[in-house]
C-alpha cells in the first residue's frame, strides 16, 4: 500500500481509481454534488499546499482569488455574454496579476505579519465584491449561466463530477511534477533553511512570488468552476471563512503532502454532511474532529498515516 502511494505514478493511479469508483459507490445526485464540491475544494488545496506546505508561506486570503475567478466567470458570462472558457482564463489572468502585484511586498513579511497581510488582501476582495452591487448583485449574490464550450453544456451532476475529477487529476499531476523538480526543491529549501537556500543560489524571493501566483491562478480556476457549477454566487465564497476553510483543509490533511491536501478537502467538505445527524451540535462535532486530529495526528492525516504504515511494513 505504502509502496504504491510513494511511487510517482502509483499515487496518481490510485487517485484516478478512487475518483472513478466514488460515483459508482455513491450514485445519487446529492452525493455527486457533494463529491463535486470536494473536488473543487481539493483543486484549491493542492495549489495552496504548494504555498503553505512546501514553501512554508501562510495565506489567509486565498478565497479572494477563488472569488475573483468565480466572479470573473459570473460577470463576464452572465452579464457580458462572454464564452465561459475565455471568462475563466480572464479570471485566472486577473488573479495571477493581482497575486504578482502584491507578492513581493507581502512575501517579504514573515509569520504572523504575512498571515495578517494575506488576510487583509482576502477581506479587501470580499468587500469589493459585496459593495459593487451593480456588477455583483452585492451580498444577495448573482446567478451564473451554465458552462458551455463548443455548443456542449455541462448540465448533469455526472458531467460536472467528471469535469472536476479530471481537473483535479491534472492539477495533482502538475503539482507532483513541480514538487519533484528544481523549483519544488527550491520551495522546500525556502521552508527548510532560507539562508542556506540563498547561499545555494536559489532566488528565494522569486520562487515565493512564483508559487504565490501559481496557487492564486489555481484557486481562480477552481472558483470559475464553482460559479458555473453552483449557478448562484455570493461574496461569502470569497470571504474570510472560506479562506480559513482552505487553510484548515491543507493543515488537516497534512502539510507538504499533495494527497493530504485532497484528503483534507474531502473530509472538511463531506464531514459536515454526515454530521447533520447531530443537528444543532454539527459545528461542535466538526471542531472536535479537527482538534482530535491535530492532537493525535499532529503532522496531518496523510503524512502521519504514511509514516506509520511505512514503519510497520519496514
Amino acid at each position, binding site marked *: 500500500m505504502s509502496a504504491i502511494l510513494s511511487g510517482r505514478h502509483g499515487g496518481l493511479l490510485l487517485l484516478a481509481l478512487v475518483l472513478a469508483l466514488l460515483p459508482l459507490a455513491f450514485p445519487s445526485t446529492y452525493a455527486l454534488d457533494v463529491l463535486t464540491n470536494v473536488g473543487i475544494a481539493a483543486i484549491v488545496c493542492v495549489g495552496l499546499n504548494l504555498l503553505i506546505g512546501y514553501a512554508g508561506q501562510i495565506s489567509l486570503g486565498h478565497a479572494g482569488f477563488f472569488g475573483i475567478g468565480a466572479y470573473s466567470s459570473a460577470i463576464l458570462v452572465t452579464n457580458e455574454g462572454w464564452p465561459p472558457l475565455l471568462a475563466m482564463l480572464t479570471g485566472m489572468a486577473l488573479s495571477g496579476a493581482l497575486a504578482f502585484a502584491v507578492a513581493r511586498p507581502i512575501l517579504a513579511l514573515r509569520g504572523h505579519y504575512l498571515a495578517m497581510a494575506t488576510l487583509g488582501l482576502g477581506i479587501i476582495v470580499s468587500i469589493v465584491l459585496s459593495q459593487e452591487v451593480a456588477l455583483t448583485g452585492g451580498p444577495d449574490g448573482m446567478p451564473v449561466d451554465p458552462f458551455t464550450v463548443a455548443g456542449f453544456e455541462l448540465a448533469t451532476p455526472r458531467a460536472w463530477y467528471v469535469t472536476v475529477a479530471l481537473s483535479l487529476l491534472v492539477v495533482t499531476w*502538475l503539482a507532483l*511534477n*513541480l514538487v519533484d*523538480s*528544481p*523549483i*519544488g*526543491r*527550491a520551495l*522546500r*529549501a525556502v*521552508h*527548510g*533553511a532560507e*539562508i*542556506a*537556500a*540563498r*547561499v*545555494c*543560489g*536559489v*532566488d*528565494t524571493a522569486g520562487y515565493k512570488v*512564483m508559487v504565490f501566483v501559481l496557487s492564486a491562478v489555481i484557486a481562480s480556476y477552481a472558483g470559475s468552476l464553482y460559479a458555473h457549477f453552483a449557478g448562484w454566487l455570493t461574496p461569502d465564497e470569497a470571504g474570510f471563512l472560506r479562506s480559513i476553510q482552505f487553510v484548515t483543509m491543507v493543515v488537516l490533511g497534512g502539510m*507538504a503532502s499533495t494527497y493530504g491536501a485532497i484528503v483534507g478537502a474531502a473530509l472538511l467538505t463531506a464531514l459536515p454532511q454526515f454530521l447533520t445527524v447531530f443537528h444543532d451540535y454539527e459545528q461542535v462535532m466538526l471542531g472536535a474532529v479537527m482538534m482530535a486530529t491535530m492532537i493525535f495526528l499532529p503532522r496531518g492525516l496523510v503524512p502521519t498515516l504514511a509514516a506509520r504504515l511505512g514503519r510497520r511494513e519496514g
Partner: protein
Amino acid sequence: MLEVRGLTCHFGGVRAVDGVDFTIPRGGIHAIIGPNGAGKTTLFNLITGVIRPTAGEILFEERNIAGLPPERLARLGISRTFQNLRIFFNMTVLENVLVGRHLHLYRGALGALFRTPRFRRSEAEAQAFAEELLARVGLADWRHRPAEGLPYGALKRLEIARALAAEPRLLLLDEPAAGCNEAETREIAELIGSLAAADGITVVLVEHDMHLVMNICDHIIVLDHGRKLAEGSAREIREDPRVIEAYLGKAARELAHAARG
C-alpha cells in the same frame, strides 16, 4: 582571489569586525582563527552576503562584492557551510545536495510541469553528480534517507557536499570539524585537502581545532576583538607572542604574575 579592505561591521555599539584587511591568493587552504567572539563568523557572513558591511570593500576576483546578496555571490562561485547546521531537514540527503546543484540545473517551469525530455536529462545528470559527491563524503548509503535523524558528523559532511554541488571556486567552511570525533576530523581534513589539491578550490575555514588548522592550512589569519592580530604560515602563527597572548591571555599573565610572587 579574495581581497578584504577596511572591512567593518557594527551591531549597535559592538564592533564585530573592525577595519580588517587581508588577501587570500588563489588556491590552497586558508584559516581564520581567533578566540570566541573575535568576529570570525561575522567575517564569513560578510563575505558570503548574509549580512552587509558597515564599511569597507570585499573584492572577489577584482570585483567589489560587498553588500551583494548570497544568491548573487553563489553565481559568482562562492559557497559556504554554516557553523550551526543549516540543513534542509524537510528533504532527503540526495535532495539537499540537489539544491546545492540548483544553479547548474535546467529550471524552466514548463519543463518541470510537463517533465520534458530536456528536463529529465538535466535531472538525471544532477542526480548522478550528487550521488558521486555523496560517495565522496561517505554518505552514499544514506542518500534516500530524510536528512532529519542523521548523526551530527554526517550532517556536517552533507553540508560540505551541498556546497560542493555548486562547483564553487571559493569555499568557506565554518567550523567543519566542530563536534566531530578524532576519526571524523581526520576524514574531514583529508576531504578538505583533496578539495584544494585535486579540485583546485580555494578553501577558507574557520576552525577551533588547532591541530587540524596547523596541519592542513597554508596560510592563517588571526582575529581578535574584530581586528586582525596576525597573519602568516602555521609556524609563524604558532610562535607569534601576540597570538599566544590572545589565546592564553589572562591565564598566562596571571601565571607569570604568580610565578614572580
